[in-house]
């Protein structure tokens, strides 16, 4: 039982990472009709940014404040990936609005190129980032099982990010514009919402949060140029299950995929876990073909 709880908790931290990745995906898909396959590579870039920041920090900062590198790394990961996202949006993505399938293939091409770029710079072998010492402890819960501090931190980080996104989307003027453009682009535009700016901003922010997710995965193990790809499928499954356009959908999806995977693996075997999750997703979609929290529309061909 302890082992199972432990698995479950580990699953929750995977959920958190998926959630961070899926939020960006769901919003860009809902707003612009873009399926961004390169989102996984934003995670990877975030992770490598953390790696670089750590090494620079080690070289220039006094040793006793080494642990603080992590906050710098998080900030840097957000800024770097948001910048990369912004550049890509301006150069390529914006030509693909509303062409979901085309955007999927183009961003797949981008992801291959980004992987190779990182491979050329950092080499094909995995690198590792050491977590701050204060997270390297385990916390005993009710004497039953030990929660790793790192994973707990990831959980907290996801919750805070989620809250930030929610506040941004529902409490600020910019967030309201984004939601308006999501529901009816033409109408929003004619009411004076600068949709191009919305798109750009949203894409950059979504990428930024993928960068933070990348920062988080450095806690879970070594990172390599293809690490993004191992998350992208699950992140998209999260979006598909949860539905597009609402944060609650992404949370639910992330919970199902992130916790479901390890649970199935626990009860069956590692190789069957993915198959089981796939079956579960198919079953859910039998009843909700557009995800659990989908927005219903009256259009004939949507």
């Amino acid at each position, binding site marked *: 039982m302890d082992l199972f709880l432990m698995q479950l908790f580990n699953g929750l931290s995977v959920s958190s990472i998926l959630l961070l990745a899926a939020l960006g995906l769901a919003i860009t898909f809902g707003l612009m009709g873009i*399926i961004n396959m390169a989102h996984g590579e934003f995670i990877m870039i975030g992770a490598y940014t953390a790696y670089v920041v750590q090494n620079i920090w080690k070289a220039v900062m006094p040793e006793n404040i080494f642990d603080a590198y992590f906050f710098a790394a998080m900030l840097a990961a957000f800024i770097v990936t948001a910048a990369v996202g912004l550049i890509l949006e301006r150069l390529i993505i914006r030509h693909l609005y509303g062409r979901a399938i*085309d955007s999927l293939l183009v961003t797949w*091409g981008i992801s291959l190129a980004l992987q190779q770029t990182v491979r050329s710079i950092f080499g094909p072998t995995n690198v590792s980032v050491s977590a701050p010492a204060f997270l390297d402890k385990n916390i005993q819960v009710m004497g039953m099982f030990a929660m790793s501090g790192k994973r707990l931190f990831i959980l907290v980080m996801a919750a805070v990010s989620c809250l930030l996104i929610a506040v941004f989307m529902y409490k600020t003027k910019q967030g309201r514009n984004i939601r308006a453009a999501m529901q009816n682009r033409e109408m929003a535009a004619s009411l004076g919402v600068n949709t191009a700016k919305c798109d750009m901003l949203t894409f950059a922010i979504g990428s930024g949060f993928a960068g933070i997710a990348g920062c988080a995965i450095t806690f879970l193990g070594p990172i390599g140029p293809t690490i993004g790809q191992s998350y992208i499928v699950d992140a998209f*499954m999260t979006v598909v299950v949860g539905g597009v356009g609402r944060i609650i959908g992404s949370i639910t999806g992330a919970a199902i995929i992130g916790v479901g995977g390890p649970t199935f693996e626990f009860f069956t075997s590692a190789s069957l*876990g993915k198959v089981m999750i796939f079956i579960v997703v198919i079953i859910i*979609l039998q009843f909700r073909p557009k995800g659990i929290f989908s927005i219903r529309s009256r259009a004939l*061909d949507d």
Partner: protein
Amino acid sequence: MDLKNLTVRGHRLTGKNILAMLIFLFLATAPIYMSSFRVNMLGKYMCFALVALGIDMIWGYTGILSLGHGVYFGLGAYCMAMHLKLEASNGELPDFMAWSAVEKLPAFWAPFHSSVFTICAVVLIPVIFAAIIGSLTFLNRIRGVFFCILSQALSYALATFMIGRQEYFGGSNGLTSFTTIFGFSVNSPTTKMVLFYFTLVFLIGAFALCTKIVNSRVGRVLIAVRDAENRVRFTGYSPAVYKVFVYCLSAALAGIAGALYVPQVGIISPTDINIAPSTEMVIWVAVGGKATLVGSILGALVVNFTKSIVSEQFPDIWQFFIGALFIAVILFFPGGLISIKDLPAKVIGIIRKKSSKADAADTAAVNADAREPKKDPKVSRTPVGKGGSV
């Protein structure tokens, strides 16, 4: 319009058909002037061309993007590989099973002793699998990108499963070291040549079959599904049934391709069926020109030939190259190689637009075509001279 009506139905000598004949002629005569190494590569590419034909049917014509065709390719390939493995083991346990301390041949391996069963299985297993997946998705109107993502997850799930099941499927090493196929040595030049021509025959047969389907009313229904699925439904057709049909067809082609691939290449592993190769299959079709059957064959041959050349010379660049290919083809060249012949007209259109704006109406149409490739009938489908029979 009148030209189109002049041709006799079923015997059209269009540019595309001539191109197809030239390609087949080239393939058939390749062993005369190419080294056996290159011919073997060509055999492999023809398998890929078979897969591309199927993907073109479902993506180019029906508008459903499947990113999981590696699954069907893999199912066909694994079926064949299991048979070859049993042939190579001479009635003993296949080597990798012994390494994983499996003591008895698993029950599902046993039927693959029979070559007849294997030949049926390479078609039927992918088709049945596709029918199940297709019914579960298309009947419930899971479509568009939702289907793309599911199909991608499918290939990911299958690859993970295969990797995890070391004892049954050889894990990430896959199945390899075959000796004979139906009693003939896989390494003998004669067997290789027979396999090569066998693949060519299948490719030509598949091309003929797909051409026939595309030119029948089924082809028109598929295009209609791509353009306005609900209208098809309210015209009295069941889009889901047509989609399952074409999905199964493409799965069968991929399965056959996989089965022909294994003896020629000598190995099948989860790497060949995972997300990356499955997605690459789509770009073959895009490069050649989707919704033109000959385009998909051309694309598969050209991309894979280029891949071999580039990765032989500069192994590091290939990934940049294929990445750039994805971006460039979709963004700037949506008609693919087949649309090269339209290029002069487009260039002239752009030049004319720049030189005089008086002629706006005509050039606007040309530019609209350039921007919205899907709507361009010339690029998106082979014209059928049907109205001529009235």
